[in-house]
């Protein structure tokens, strides 16, 4: 048995779908954020895998992942700041209630 690309893509796909499931079902904003992180991770894996298997001499995939991680960190920090702020205002972080900005 050889560990081809497919073997890595399938778990990453699974992770991604779990992220999607979590994103659309969870109501807690932090849980949603966690799901988002899962999806991001799955994508990161794909980048790395494709880089490793198809263009082993280059490092684009790796760097993309690197930057993605950095940005994910920034984004998470900001999102959590917002969530905490919302919690202060609304004392709740249920996403269904946070629709003041609609329309």
């Amino acid at each position: 048995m050889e560990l081809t690309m497919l073997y890595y893509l399938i778990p990453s796909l699974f992770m991604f779908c779990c992220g999607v499931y979590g994103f659309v079902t969870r109501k807690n904003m932090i849980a949603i954020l966690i799901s988002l992180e899962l999806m991001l991770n799955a994508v990161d894996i794909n980048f790395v895998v494709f880089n490793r298997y198809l263009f082993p001499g280059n490092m684009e995939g790796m760097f993309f992942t690197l930057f993605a991680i950095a940005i994910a960190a920034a984004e998470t920090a900001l999102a959590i700041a917002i969530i905490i702020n919302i919690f202060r205002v609304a004392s709740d972080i249920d996403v269904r209630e946070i629709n003041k900005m609609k329309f």
Partner: protein
Amino acid sequence: MESVGSIIMYVIIALAIVIFSILAVTTRKILRAATYLLFTLFATAAIYFQLDYEFLGAVQIAVYAGGIVVLFVFSILLTSHPGDNSEKLASKSKKMGLVGAAVMFIAAAWSLFSRCEMLMTSRPEMSNPDMQRVGEALMGTAHYQYLLPFEAVSVLLLACIIGGVVIARKR
């Protein structure tokens, strides 16, 4: 052909990813979800290691597992009411989400398998990208060098820091 060790390693990693992903999105306690996310992130880091990207794996552990998850935990502790840290999911939305995710999984998996041959290439040899290469690529301005995105990300991070401070600050 891979060594049996790496196959076993792969199986463990894959199982960890699958199981902890599922647990992370299904558990009702949010703190547990964060913990399961941590495990998933570790598993991801393991994949990076297995694919010879050690630097990336290290970053994954340090930033994701070390930084982000800690942020999550803090925020969970800050935002949850005592004794009320679980949420009930409506079964309808659960089902819908399941169906959606499943459909997506099937569609994507089907498209993956339909190109099975292309994806069945064996892993080519690659010299492990050592720190010097990584550093040069990160700090250079030539082709395939990434100083500009690096700077962009750093500015972004700065903006996030400021933004985070401004937003979270008590009025």
